[in-house]
Each structure stands twice: as structure tokens, then as C-alpha cells.
């Protein structure tokens, strides 16, 4: 028995040896009772398993399975497809301008975020708040609320992250904001395509506002990335990134009401 490789016996039983090799091995094993018993055991078990009919779901079980899985994935709520959402996305510019003007007027609540969606296949997205939009600046001044985000953003479009909110609000005019938004299209196009570091990819400790709505609209339970509102009044922005470096789907809400604001694509 010891002279037989058990892998070869198993292969012989499974019929996976070349015919000539199988014939030689079979003949040799026939002269060895213990090896023959081993081969017989392998074949018996294999045939028993292979001959057993494969279990199948009944019609009721199948229907219930699909219903339960779809329900768990929120596919049973007839959510509006993401592609359809993109067709009814709102024009953000008037909204942003009005918001900026209002913010400047009250000069109180820091900041709101804004979302810009590109016209072509590529999205233009900013999750940064419009903190600095000095009228003398033609490139637009965008700054994230803190740390790394500010560095990333300042690297993209030469922003001035150190500009304070009070300064920006005090000096912001609608034309300046409009210029900033226009420039943002170009700046954030690069932003969306590359720096995943801008976006948090870990689940936050704090409750995520509008998570249920995001799940329904994204048709996904577990958004890979998101940007929490950095300050009161900011937009909540959600996105999915398949490779961690590009934005594939995104929805934005007003976190106070969870009203849908925009989506990409």
C-alpha cells in the first residue's frame, strides 16, 4: 500500500488520470488488497455524493428568499434609480448663490457646503464648505474646515484656507461667489478624480444624518464614503467610490430636513 500515492488513488477514483496511467495504476492496485479497498472506498463515496440529486429550492422558498434579500437590501421600496435621480437634479447655482447671499446677510451661522455636478461623464464635486470667497480672488477660495482637507483643497486651486469665515462672509458678494463657483467646477474636477483622502472612508462614531435616505437613494446599505456636515447648516454629502479614488455615485441632502438636493451621476 505504501508504494501508492494516495493522491493518485484519489485521482483515479475521480477519473481525472489519463487513461493509460489509470489502467496501469488500476492493475497494480488490484494486486494489493489494502490499496484496492482504499480505491473502492474513494469510489463509493464519490459515487454516493455525485448520484445524490442536488437540493433545489421550492418555488415558495425561492420567492421568499428573493423577497427577503431584496427587503434587506432595500430593493423592495421601489427607490428611484440613481440614473433617474440625476435627471431631476436641481440647478445648484441659484441655490448656492441665494444661500451665500443669505449667509452674508446674517453673517452668523458658519458655512454651508455646496455640490457641483459636472456636465459630462465626469462629476465635479465639492464637499468643502465655501468659506472664503474674497471678491478680489478670481480663482475661488475654498477651504475645508480643518487639517488635511484644507491642505488638499489649497493644493488644488490655490485657495486660502486660513481665511476665516467671518472675513469671507463679510466680503462675499454674489458675483464673487459666482466666480468662485465657476472656478470650482475646474478645481473640483481634479478633486473628484484623485484625492480619496478628502473623503472619510471609515464609519463615523457619530450618527450619520440622512443615512436612511442615502441608503434608499443609493440603493446600497453601506456607503463607502461620506462627508459629514462639518458645521451646522452644512450639506451632508454621500458618495460611493468603487476603487476608493473616484466618485461613482453620490447624493446630497440638507441635513436638517434630509431633503434631497442633488446627485451624481
Amino acid at each position, binding site marked *: 500500500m505504501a508504494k501508492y500515492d494516495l493522491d493518485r488513488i*484519489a485521482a483515479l477514483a475521480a477519473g481525472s488520470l489519463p487513461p493509460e496511467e489509470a489502467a496501469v495504476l488500476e492493475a497494480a492496485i488490484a494486486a494489493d488488497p489494502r490499496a484496492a479497498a482504499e480505491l473502492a472506498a474513494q469510489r463509493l*463515496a464519490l459515487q454516493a455524493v455525485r448520484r445524490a440529486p442536488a437540493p433545489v*429550492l421550492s418555488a415558495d422558498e425561492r420567492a421568499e428568499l428573493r423577497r427577503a434579500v431584496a427587503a434587506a437590501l432595500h430593493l423592495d421600496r421601489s427607490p428611484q434609480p440613481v440614473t433617474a435621480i440625476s435627471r431631476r437634479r436641481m440647478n445648484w447655482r441659484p441655490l448656492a448663490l441665494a444661500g451665500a447671499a443669505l449667509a452674508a446677510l446674517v453673517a452668523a451661522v458658519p458655512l454651508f457646503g455646496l455640490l457641483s455636478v459636472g456636465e459630462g461623464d465626469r462629476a465635479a464635486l465639492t464637499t468643502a464648505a465655501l468659506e472664503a470667497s474674497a471678491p478680489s480672488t478670481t480663482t475661488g477660495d475654498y477651504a475645508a474646515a480643518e487639517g488635511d482637507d484644507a491642505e488638499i483643497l489649497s493644493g488644488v486651486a490655490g485657495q486660502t484656507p486660513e481665511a476665516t469665515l467671518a472675513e469671507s462672509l463679510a466680503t462675499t458678494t454674489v458675483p464673487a461667489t459666482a466666480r468662485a463657483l465657476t472656478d470650482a467646477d475646474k478645481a473640483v474636477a481634479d478633486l473628484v478624480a484623485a484625492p480619496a483622502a478628502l473623503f472619510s472612508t471609515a464609519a463615523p462614531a457619530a450618527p450619520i444624518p440622512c443615512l436612511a435616505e442615502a441608503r434608499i437613494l443609493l440603493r446600497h*446599505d453601506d456607503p463607502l464614503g461620506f462627508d459629514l456636515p462639518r458645521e451646522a447648516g452644512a450639506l451632508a454629502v454621500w458618495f460611493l467610490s468603487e476603487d476608493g479614488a473616484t466618485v461613482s455615485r453620490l447624493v446630497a441632502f440638507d441635513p436638517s430636513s434630509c431633503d434631497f438636493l442633488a446627485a451624481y451621476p
Partner: protein
Amino acid sequence: MTARGDADTELIARYLRGDADAFDQLMRAHEDRVFAVCLRLLRDREAALDATQETFITVFRKVDRFAGHSAFSTWLYRVAVNTCYDQARRAGRRAADPLPEGMDQPDEAAGRALEAAELRPDLEAALAQLSTEFRSAVVLCDAEGLSLQTAAEILGVPVGTVKSRVFRGRRLLAEALGNLRPVPDHLSDEHHG
């Protein structure tokens, strides 16, 4: 990649774009085989249905992280096997808990589940005698017809380990089927292990 693998990749992409039909097609393509694996591993129809459901929910929730390094079906099987292991562990813990007073009645549901099981009773009983490791290797390779390499990926063990488990699992299965004198275990240990 196989035609099935290509089709799965395309369906996953469509699903991620919000195509509900892609979900149906992925379910249709894989639900019976996942259920078969779960039933053969757990040997209880209700438990297998639960595990099948949990498997698909897990997979669809994480499908956007599927990198495509292996076939979608391999990943799916892996989730299914792990889900079955977890469920078996949970069931084991539950079985160890004492029943509340007055609850030790005959389990009619268990009898119905056994009647409903579609495995042949002798094979069912024989499979039940295998350890989880041997049973999963035999089910994946011999029942599902997967290659040793694929089974190794699914089980997360080296190919040699799968070979050994399949070989010894078949022998134990044959012995359990009662049609063969036991082969001394040390014979195979001369080659495996």
C-alpha cells in the same frame, strides 16, 4: 475568466448602477447552488435557507468591494461556507443551553425538516458523521464538482490540505455508508500529514 464569470462581472456592474434586473439575474444564477452547499453543510433545510439568505445579503452589501481577483462564485461560496460555519457554531451554543422548563417537547419541526430534506437519508446520515472540515471539502469538490484549487480558495486553506480532507472525507463517508470495512487510518497518514 469563464463565460459565467464574465456574465457575473457584467451583472455586478449593472447592479451597482442600480439595475434591479441584474439583482434578479444574479440570484437566479446562484441561489440553487448556494442553497445546495448550505443544506449539505448544515443538513437542516430551515437553517440552510437562513444561511442562504444571509449569504446573499452579505454578498450584495459588499459587492462593490468585490475586486475580481477570483471568480464571483468563488467569493460567494466562501461567504456561504463561512456563514454556515457561523450558524453551526451558534446552533451548537444554543444546543448547549438548557431548555426552559416545559419546553422539552418533541420537536415536530425537526421531523418535518428531515422529511423535507432532499438528500438521500443514507447519504445525509453519512455526511452528518463527517467533521465540518471534511464535509465541506467533500461537498465542494465532489458534490459541487469544484476544483481543488477553487475549494482551497473558498476554504482558505492550502490545496494540499483540501486534497487530504477530500481523501479522508471520502473514506470516512464510505465507512459511514456501511458498505466497506474501515481502512486503518495510519495507512493514509503515511502519505498525508
